[in-house]
């Protein structure tokens, strides 16, 4: 049988069902999914709202960072101009880059994922709606506070890449640099949360029958995006932690006088920083691959090639980071590798460009605003890609690096590759969530102004750079011939500003938010988000048999709306969505979903408070805020993993699925695994830092403690792992043994703590100090990471005991224990590997 889970695909033939649905069913569905009103709207978790808030916030930061860009261009319009003093300018350009990259670009594409994916996959919502809400609020509160630093002259001024030692305590003594680390902290949290959400959402909540080769390209792009976040963000998370440790506690990761190395930061930053560009570009390319077929009214040509191109880009992009470091004096052999990889990464981009051209060629283009932006994107992005090929060649890069040539290149790539597709998406999807579409007439003006402005502004910059103008200069001397191109660039920048202003006017005049009666499919798209929807997404979840269901089955919308497919009502009387299998999207079980809650919002506010208060050095209140954040998270998690009355329910046409699953079938397991991969990547990066600093200054390394200690540490961790495994087994025993699992988990955590104490204590006794050398700094950083995760693990036994007392643990509902055991087991493995690495390598000393 052709099945992944044992589900019989012949059952799909029962749909669309014929018998009429009970009349009260739709009303109940609306009731279950209704959004809170008034102030309670702040507690909303539904993706229609959170998605829109998210997009709105990202656009707000785009406008704010855009205003900073206009200030930059005003200052550079004339040589020795005095509009912005030097210190202000250095803060403004740093904030422009940081806000655009971290507070606009990544959140914007993530926001579109939150907003569009459930509808595109015909899921009721993303699998962890409260996590989305938490990520959004942490991002909004944190982002606004971070941005406000510029009004107090406290904004970072070290450039968006924050190279130490310029950003170390010695050369940046103020708290400005800490604000950068804070701002990035939020976006790290919300990006990781979003990645968890999107990976699980795309892999587990697709409409039945939507096999991977029928997945909308945008969903593919978001899957690769999320995977890249999981691999790439840990490097910058570790980097920011190390830089803050160096600034706050004087651990010399980047200080060459004590065995650190400034280049370590560059490796960590760009290992994240270059994939980051594709993290931004791939979702936008996914948007293009959705919009272009609709514009041309024909399926995408080369679907499989495009998907392969997305995967290839994701893969190759992790081999190109050092092309930002060609001028650091790397050995020619590694330079050559990164040069070749940087050239190679342009090939999948070319594949996508030609797929869009082929699709336009296959169909008949309607000249709508999304079409204009899509075509503008192809031209602009191609130009940026070509200059990218140029700078991938090392000798040319040695001339172009850190000049305005690069400024031109990166703006062509990011605006052509991301901003234009985003504007196309704004116009294209607005009718889904607004009663009125945006104005086609104004849209043409917006496109005309922005497109012209971009080329007027950035084309001359190629020349300015070749004429010798470096980046990040607050002024320049007259007489160098840079005046005219700079003035032209400034004119172009203000044209872009005017275009964006006109877009805001369009939004104010025409955007009317709605969840039920949107203007609808005005551009004639063929994917599932154009089904009639409410807050519950599509009323019933259709069986998918093709890539463009709405084009190929004209009656589908009506059948879905009449409830003739899966899950036509609220089967269990609460919020729920259908979990399907990873490859073939066969129904597996019905997931209960949480409703509105204040806890994620409060947790987000206290998380923001924690970081902010620490940044302004209010340590006491900061710790209080941190404890409150943890308490709110625990309170929020407390409501999860609850028993449901029915063990199995009918999800339509007499097909019955369970209401609970454990292990790899469950969405919680997937989320925990993704989270542990993130933790593992952070650990791996810390291990890399250790080896890297050793390679720089082996003479500063001291011998490790006696190897008997290693045996004790590894033995302790092995015991913790075994106990965690036993706890998971014990959770499946009868209810009378309900305290076994918490007891075993307690022992496991105790074993973790003993092993950790032995590890830490023996290094201390051996005389290693974190502020003494690169060895001390990295060994204690690895230990600190283990300690932070261990602190999270130490909350688990108490939590499990409380669950047991409250009667929330049972032999069938084992997820809480399973996931705790998984976490503890992971920590045991991480602790052992860490100890083995730093005690055996380089050995003896």
């Amino acid at each position: 049988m052709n099945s992944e889970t044992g589900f019989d695909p012949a059952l799909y033939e029962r749909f669309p069902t014929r018998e009429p649905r009970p009349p009260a069913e739709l009303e109940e569905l609306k009731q279950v999914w209704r959004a809170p009103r008034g102030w309670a709207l702040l507690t909303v978790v539904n993706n229609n709202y959170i998605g829109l808030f998210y997009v709105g916030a990202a656009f707000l930061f785009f406008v704010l960072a855009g205003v900073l860009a206009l200030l930059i261009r005003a200052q550079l319009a004339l040589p020795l101009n005095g509009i912005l003093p030097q210190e202000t300018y250095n803060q403004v350009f740093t904030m422009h880059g940081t806000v655009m990259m971290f507070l606009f670009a990544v959140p914007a594409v993530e926001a579109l994922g939150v907003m569009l994916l459930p509808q595109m996959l015909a899921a009721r919502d993303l699998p962890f709606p409260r996590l989305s809400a938490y990520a959004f609020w942490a991002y909004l509160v944190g982002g606004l506070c971070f941005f406000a630093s510029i009004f107090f002259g406290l904004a970072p001024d070290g450039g968006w890449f924050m190279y130490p030692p310029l950003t170390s305590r010695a050369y940046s003594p103020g708290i400005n640099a800490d604000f950068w680390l804070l701002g990035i902290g939020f976006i790290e949290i919300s990006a990781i949360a979003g990645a968890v959400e999107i990976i699980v959402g795309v892999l587990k909540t697709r409409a039945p029958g939507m096999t991977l080769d029928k997945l909308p390209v945008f969903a593919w792009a978001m899957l690769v995006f999320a995977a890249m976040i999981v691999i790439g963000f840990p490097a910058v998370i570790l980097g920011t932690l190390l830089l803050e440790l160096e600034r706050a506690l004087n651990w010399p990761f980047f200080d060459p006088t004590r065995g650190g190395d400034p280049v370590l930061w560059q490796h960590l930053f760009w290992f994240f920083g270059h994939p980051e560009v594709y993290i931004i570009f791939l979702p936008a390319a996914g948007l293009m691959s959705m919009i272009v077929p609709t514009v041309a009214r024909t399926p995408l040509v080369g679907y499989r090639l495009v998907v392969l191109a997305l995967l290839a880009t994701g893969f190759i992009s992790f081999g190109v980071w050092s092309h930002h470091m060609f001028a650091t004096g790397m050995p020619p052999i590694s330079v050559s590798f990164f040069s070749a990889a940087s050239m190679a990464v342009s090939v999948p981009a070319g594949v996508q460009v030609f797929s869009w051209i082929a699709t336009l060629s296959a169909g008949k283009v309607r000249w709508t605003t999304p079409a204009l932006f899509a075509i503008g994107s192809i031209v602009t992005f191609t130009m940026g890609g070509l200059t990218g090929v140029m700078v991938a060649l090392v000798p040319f890069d040695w001339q172009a690096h850190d000049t305005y040539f690069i400024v031109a290149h990166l703006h062509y790539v990011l605006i052509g590759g991301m901003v234009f597709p985003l504007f196309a998406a704004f116009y294209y999807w607005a009718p889904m969530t607004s009663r009125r579409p945006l104005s086609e007439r104004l849209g043409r003006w917006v496109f005309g102004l922005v497109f012209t402005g971009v080329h007027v502004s950035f084309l001359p910059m190629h020349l300015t750079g070749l004429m010798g103008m470096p980046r990040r200069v607050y002024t320049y001397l007259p007489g160098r011939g840079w005046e005219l191109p700079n003035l032209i660039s400034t004119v172009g920048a203000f044209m872009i500003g005017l275009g964006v202003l006109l877009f805001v006017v369009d939004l104010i005049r025409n955007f009317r938010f709605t969840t039920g009666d949107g203007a609808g499919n005005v551009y004639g798209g063929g994917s599932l988000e154009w089904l009639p929807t409410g807050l519950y997404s599509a009323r019933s979840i259709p069986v998918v048999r093709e890539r463009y269901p709405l084009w190929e089955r004209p009656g589908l919308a009506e059948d879905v709306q009449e409830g003739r497919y899966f899950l036509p009502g609220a089967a269990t009387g609460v919020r729920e969505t259908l979990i399907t299998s990873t490859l073939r999207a066969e129904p597996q079980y019905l997931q209960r979903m949480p409703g509105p809650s204040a806890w994620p919002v409060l947790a987000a506010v206290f998380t923001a408070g924690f970081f902010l208060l620490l940044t302004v050095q209010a340590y006491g209140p900061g710790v209080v805020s941190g404890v409150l954040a943890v308490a709110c998270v625990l309170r929020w998690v407390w409501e999860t993993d609850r028993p449901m009355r029915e063990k199995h329910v009918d999800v339509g046409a007499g097909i019955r699925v369970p209401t609970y699953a454990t292990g790899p079938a469950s969405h919680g397991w997937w989320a925990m695994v993704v989270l542990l991969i993130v933790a593992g990547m952070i650990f791996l990066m810390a291990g890399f830092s250790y080896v890297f600093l050793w390679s720089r200054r082996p003479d500063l390394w001291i011998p490790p403690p006696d190897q008997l200690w290693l045996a004790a540490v590894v033995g302790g961790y092995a015991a913790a792992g075994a106990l965690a495994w036993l706890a998971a087994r014990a959770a499946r025993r009868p209810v009378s043994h309900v305290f076994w699992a918490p007891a075993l988990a307690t022992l496991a955590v105790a074993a973790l703590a003993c092993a950790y104490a032995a590890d830490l204590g023996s290094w201390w006794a051996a005389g290693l100090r974190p502020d003494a050398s690169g060895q001390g700094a990295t060994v204690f950083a690895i230990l600190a990471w283990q300690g932070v995760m261990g602190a999270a693990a130490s909350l688990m036994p108490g939590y499990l005991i409380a669950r047991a007392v409250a009667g929330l643990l049972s032999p069938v509902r084992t997820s809480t224990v399973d996931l705790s055991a998984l976490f503890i087991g992971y920590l045991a493995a991480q602790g052992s590997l860490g100890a083995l690495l730093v005690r055996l390598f380089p050995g003896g000393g």
Partner: protein
Amino acid sequence: MSPPTSTRSTLAEALRGWPPPPLDPAGPHAGAVAALSWALFGMFVAVLLVVVAALLVALFGKPAWRRRLAREKAIWIGGLAFPVVVLTALLVWGLTLTRDLTAAPQPGEMRVRVTGEMWWWRVVYLDGEGRAAILDANELHIPAGTPVTLELEAADVIHSFWIPRLAGKLDMIPGRRNILRIQADSPGVYAGQCAEYCGGPHALMGFVVVAHAPAEFERWRAERLAPPAPPPDAFAARGAQLFETAGCGACHRVRGTGAEGLAGPDLSHVGARRSLGAGILPNNHGALAGWIADSQAIKPGNRMPPYRVLSGEELRALAAWLGSRR
């Protein structure tokens, strides 16, 4: 390979951005890169034309052409085969050139250590044993026609050394020493600027390379090694005295005097420099006096405090003395 097109001899000419310095090479290293650059511009234009032409055909072309372009084969050819061929050819060229340009210095080459400081350059000419022979700042003198090895270091944060008409840039990183070889084919003045953001007045951190004909270079070196001359007149002598009493020697070194400070630029030959303030002002007595009085107004954020306590007369005396240090 495009031959050097012009030689610039004054500071103002050296600072000019036209023709674009990387495309107007004055030595073999920059020359090889310039040739590659022209090829890359050609590639840019050609590929862009192909893509735009394909796009125009897709949007407005005859149905027969459009049908051909709408096949998956078009993606294989345009998106895969075409770029792979073009990129491979370029890559081979680029990698070969990279290898040639990073060739190790020959024994016996002249060596100079250039250290990036916030926001100026320390220049130390090394003798055959690697010892400091001549100390200077913000200006480098080399013989034309022979390669010179530069040892690039940083004293505080990361800087980047870049003289576009002579070679590509190379970073100066604390704790590391990077080797850059430059060569000027003919005598002239070549300007550059710090390329790695180093905070504060990074925008105003320029550098000048002066290439001499070999015989003239030997004369220059002999002058630098000769014992310093006394102040030429009484006014300059007063300046020398002021230099001592105002405490300038705490930060600056002047060869042959008690001033041994190493925090700021070496002023032993400041009068011979073509620029002041690290490549930003043409050097003359007025500029010298103005710089001492309030360098913060000229280059905000630099490490030198203003000396507004000095009278105009005193400033002129100081300038006369420093200007005589050639």
